[in-house]
């Protein structure tokens, strides 16, 4: 028995060694695992723990809305004057005008900080993110391919990624002008361009940053950032939130 077991043990050390003896990341933090092709292992189920879904800026509480400190670096979104006025209009009608009230795809980055989990899968050529909310998906191409040319737009944009050291950097373009950043009516135009950075800070935390560019709406680039927390429940898996089914029910049985 012992003779049989030993080769297996040796095999485990050889194969798992790189995973057990964790390499040290760019900023000195310890990364616990890497994928077979040596990239930081972002795989798993993640979720935010903040109030950005309601308002990405600082806000007090209201009925059904928890107070929260903003995730916008520098505090305020640098709107052009006309756009700030429009944002205020949106806020006043948020209950019905929020695209999520019609179960539309939330766009990027809003999908990241909805209060629902999402799962990251990695292969050498792709990072796929599947979201529990309305079964949204994103395919992030890592093959140096370009965004589609021409006037083609998507609710969730088109995502092309690359590894910058130990950060996954995703360039997201080809948006439509129909999504909001939050329930408070913060918005963008079809000129939106988002650059996301996913950096594993420790085994159970990803630091997430999204740089927002939209010269039609904002006076300069701005950035939001927040941690993504690994869901650690023993049996955690993505379930479903099928928004459209609930919208049907609402329309069938109006209050």
């Amino acid at each position, binding site marked *: 028995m012992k003779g049989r077991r030993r080769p297996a043990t040796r095999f485990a050390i050889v194969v798992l060694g790189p995973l057990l003896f964790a390499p040290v990341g760019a900023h000195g933090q310890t990364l616990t695992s890497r*994928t*077979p092709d040596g990239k930081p292992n972002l*795989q798993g189920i993640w979720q935010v723990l903040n109030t950005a879904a309601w308002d990405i800026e600082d806000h007090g509480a209201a009925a059904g809305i928890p107070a929260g400190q903003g995730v916008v670096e520098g505090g305020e979104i640098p709107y052009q004057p006309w756009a700030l006025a429009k944002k205020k209009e949106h806020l006043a009608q948020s209950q019905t005008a929020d695209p999520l009230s019609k*179960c*539309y*795809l939330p766009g990027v980055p809003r999908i990241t900080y909805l209060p629902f989990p999402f*799962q990251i*899968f*990695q*292969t050498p050529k*792709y990072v*796929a993110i*599947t979201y529990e909310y309305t*079964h*949204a*998906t994103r*395919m992030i*191409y890592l093959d140096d391919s370009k965004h*589609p040319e021409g006037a*083609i737009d*998507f*609710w*969730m944009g088109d995502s092309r990624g690359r590894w910058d050291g130990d950060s996954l950097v995703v360039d997201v373009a080809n948006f439509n002008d*129909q999504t909001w950043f939050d329930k408070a009516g913060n918005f963008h135009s079809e000129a939106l361009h988002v650059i996301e950075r996913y950096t594993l800070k420790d085994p159970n935390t990803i630091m997430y940053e999204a740089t927002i560019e939209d010269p039609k709406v904002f006076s300069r680039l701005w950035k939001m950032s927040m941690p993504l927390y690994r869901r650690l429940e023993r*049996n955690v*898996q*993505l*379930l*479903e939130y*099928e928004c*459209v*089914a609930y*919208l*049907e029910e609402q*329309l*069938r049985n109006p209050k």
Partner: protein
Amino acid sequence: MVQVSAQTAQTSPTFVAPRTPDGQPDMQGMYNGGDSTSIEPGINMNPTGFYDRVWSQDRAQAPAAGAPPAGAQAGAVRRSRTDSPDGSIPWQPWAAAKKKELREGMIGDPRGAKSLDTIDPVGRCLPAGVPRSNYTYGYNGYQILQPPGYVIILSEWNHMYRIIPLDDRPHVSPKIRLWMGDSRGRWEGNTLVVDVSNSNGKTWMDMAGTFHTEALHVVERYSILDASTIGYEATIEDPNVFTKPWKLFATLNRAEAGYEMYEYACHEGNRLLDNVLLK
């Protein structure tokens, strides 16, 4: 082309799929295929006979609705999409009547529908469910990824996805009912076997009202037939609806090089809810 290669694989079981880093037979890539107009033949869904014609053309032009049956001679083709020679489904009498009602509800202009319940859930942009998610529309693609420990199937139509863990974790609680069911997989040689339960009973298996209840239990077999073909076989069990378990066949064909799935924002562009509920 594909039919020939599928049969070659069937008669020469020497095809060895490459392996992923964690040792799974590798079927990653982009695929096309499928049609969910009607599993059963003879479904004259509108006065012009349109769907019947689609069905027979489909069989004439692409007779390989599924891989040839086990033990078939080379050159055999499966003209039925089920394991019954005439393509029928073993309905219990009450269920056959209900299917007829659902199918007739699908006839004609949906704006005339009596109720949303007689309109195909896929037409309402709800998830296709299993097995239909494997053959929803021929004009949309599928992408299969195999990160360690999982098979992920992403469908272009309505951005559906399936996460199939390959470990031995149990199904979620029966209190949790899911549009896409709860999937658990394992490899048997070159075949991925997926056990799917926890259905919410609300999906149809085709446009013609092939329904089921929450008791649906599906065992799927994805067989890597050759480098470009996956044969799909689903054993469908629902003691509330069928007199016995039955099998459904489909094929996934590798898509042309460079195929990328685009966003299919189904609900966002759908006017059905407005037309039926708010008319």
